């Protein structure tokens, strides 16, 4: 079986699907919030990492803290944990390109942090519905 797709629907659970390379039969792996959290706590990803790590990725995504705990160094665009999770749902063969589009969009507008709202804004302005 080969890893096919990963989904984190936002309710604390995790789903992954695997495909048989011979007969194309698909099976699913479903994890409850506890199991999902255990894997996430290790800072690893089922299916492998397809995007470069952002600095302090685990801390920024997991700690309940100050809104201004992190700022962007001049010229650097960072990804919020929610935006990074959403990017992970983009099909892997175009994910790198999509990431660059959003990063360029933010950099051109001096946006320090890419959030889901920024992604929505970019999709509308750039006509990227579906990304």
């Amino acid at each position, binding site marked *: 079986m080969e890893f096919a797709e990963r989904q984190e629907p936002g309710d604390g659970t995790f789903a992954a699907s695997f495909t048989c390379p011979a007969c194309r039969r698909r099976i699913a792996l479903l994890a409850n*919030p506890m199991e999902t959290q255990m894997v996430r706590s*290790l800072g690893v990803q089922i299916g492998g990492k397809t995007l470069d790590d952002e600095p302090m990725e685990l801390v920024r995504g*997991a700690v309940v803290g100050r809104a201004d*705990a992190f*700022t962007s*160094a001049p010229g650097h665009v960072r990804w919020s944990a929610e935006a990074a999770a959403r990017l992970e749902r983009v099909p892997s063969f175009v994910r790198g390109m999509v990431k660059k589009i959003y990063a360029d969009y933010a950099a051109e507008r001096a946006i320090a942090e890419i959030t889901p709202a920024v992604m929505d804004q970019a999709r509308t302005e750039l006509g990227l519905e579906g990304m």
Partner: protein
Amino acid sequence: MSFRTYFDVEGRDRSDLAAQVGAQRRRVADRLKHVRHVVAVMSGKGGVGKSYLTAGLALAAAQRLAGGVGVVDADLRSPTVARLLDAQGSLAVGPDGAHPVTGAGGVRVVSTEFLLDEASPLRWKEPGHERFVWRGALEAGMLREFLSDVSWGTLDLLLIDLPPGADGVVDLVDLVPGLTGALAVTIPTEESGRSVRRALHAAAGAGIRLLGVVENFSGRRCDSCGAVGPLFPGDAGDGLAREFGVPLLGRIPFSGSVLACPDDVVEAVLARLP
């Protein structure tokens, strides 16, 4: 019904979790290869002034070491050392990592102090139940990122202020195999000595080089005339040093004056660095 195991299934393991964990460890090693000495400051017991000693030692070392001094506040749930070093602000994230906050004396600091609202405990996002199961893994991950994802630059000395307890230093050496050594802090009492003994045994058992023992609150210094009078009974520092065959690096009397690490203690600690 027949079951196939993981090893019976054909195809590449794209998750390769072991490789992901290995990559995390390599990032720590890569980041710390520009740091000359990494020293853990530990104590089996809380309330012995470990963070005060860490901060005072960092300040004094920064005046002596031209290559820079950093502090990781590994007491994640009860951060103290950043405030003692007057390090405040946010962590600026750049392509090279998060930038440590510069405190007094140019000491570079990373701490949960910078992440949390005033008076808020360290809390994690969902799920809120059964958190004891995964909290340890998250805290280990946080400490790993404090080491690997912070642009420490070149440093002569990185001090790691560990939380009270015997296990912290053992977990740390898993992350930092090149740890220079550990410094133990105790107060004079027998109770403290017993507690710190456990931490020293844990460290020695993990193959960590013991740099020595510092006895804190070793009497009380009068702020007016400088005379040192009794404060706590016992001589745990001396006893631990003899038992483990390491030097007693100094006795620090309690003083109500400003944060400072006595010169003789600073010199003794730095002399123990290879």
